[in-house]
């Protein structure tokens, strides 16, 4: 075997090594500056990211306005340690129809008594039992993404303003 033929035989291997190095560099570059925001943040794949600090939960006990009529109202108090499973529903120990006279809490909406055929049941419908599927507490955190939501009143005001012009 001559020297040139040996070089020719090794060439594909060398090219493969160079390509792998470039690809590896690209992967490294990607892991340090992700183009897509993820919950992991910019941490490398083999490292643990820094978890965000747990925010303070709002405890004002004042109802927040709803952004739109169908919005599930937010929870204006802490719910840490509240049991919500098949054994018990601590939310309902204040918000159930029979409990609100004593607790002073707002009663769950009548829509929660309806089954999916629109029939009213005597008590909360099983499909509405797990409150925190829709109702959530609020924490003081910077918004994760920009939000340009406009509520219907503001929108109508703008539209009617235009109509008058």
């Amino acid at each position: 075997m001559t020297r040139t033929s040996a070089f020719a035989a090794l060439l594909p291997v060398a090219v493969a090594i160079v390509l792998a190095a470039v690809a590896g560099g690209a992967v490294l570059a990607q892991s340090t500056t992700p183009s897509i925001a993820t919950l992991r943040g910019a941490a490398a794949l083999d490292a643990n990211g820094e978890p965000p600090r747990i925010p303070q939960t709002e405890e004002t006990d004042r109802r927040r306005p709803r952004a739109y009529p169908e919005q599930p109202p937010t929870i204006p108090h802490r719910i840490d340690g509240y049991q919500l499973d098949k054994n018990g529903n601590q939310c309902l120990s204040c918000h159930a129809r029979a409990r609100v006279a004593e607790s002073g809490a707002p009663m769950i909406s009548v829509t929660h008594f309806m089954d999916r055929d629109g029939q009213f049941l005597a008590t909360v419908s099983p499909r509405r039992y797990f409150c925190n599927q829709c109702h959530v507490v609020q924490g003081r955190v910077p918004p994760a993404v920009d939000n340009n939501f406009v509520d219907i009143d503001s929108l109508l005001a703008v539209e009617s303003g235009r109509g008058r012009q």
Partner: protein
Amino acid sequence: MKQLMALVARFWATLTRPAAHLSLGALAIGGFAAGVIFWGGFNTALEATNTETFCISCHEMRDNVYQELRQTVHFTNNSGVRATCPDCHVPHDWTDKIARKMQASKEVWGTIFGTIDTREKFLAKRLDLAKHEWARLKSNDSLECRNCHSEEYMDFSRQGPRAADAHQAFLVTGQKTCIDCHKGIAHDLPNMAGVEGWN
């Protein structure tokens, strides 16, 4: 039987006679020392059973209720003050404590005969067990809660409006006691269907 009676009679005769060989001082000091040792030993043993380590030395406690406690504010919180099992489940006053300890002999029976030695058995019996504790705390006006929490020293202005209103309306007026509202704060609740306030 006759021999036994004779033995008892002889023992009684010895007990009622003045000591022939021991001095009064030896008897008095010896009796005092023995008293200190026995009483101290009794109390030490009693206190040893009044620790969390003792409670969770049985798997019934360690694997069920203790694991649940670890998630709650009574185990880990911002100030680092925590409650151990006996803080809530054993009265602190001596007579009440002894009464509870005598009751607890049934729990020794339970652990020997495996009344709740599996998770399934425990869950099946959980409502009964919880009802015992609710009844106990209800009847002593939540004494064990009040060993640490006192409405006299509660600063309602530093509580959430919801808590402040409820405490002033029901706790201060004596209409309700802690356990009436605060069930399941240190352990998971059993099936609450039919329990007052949980319909």
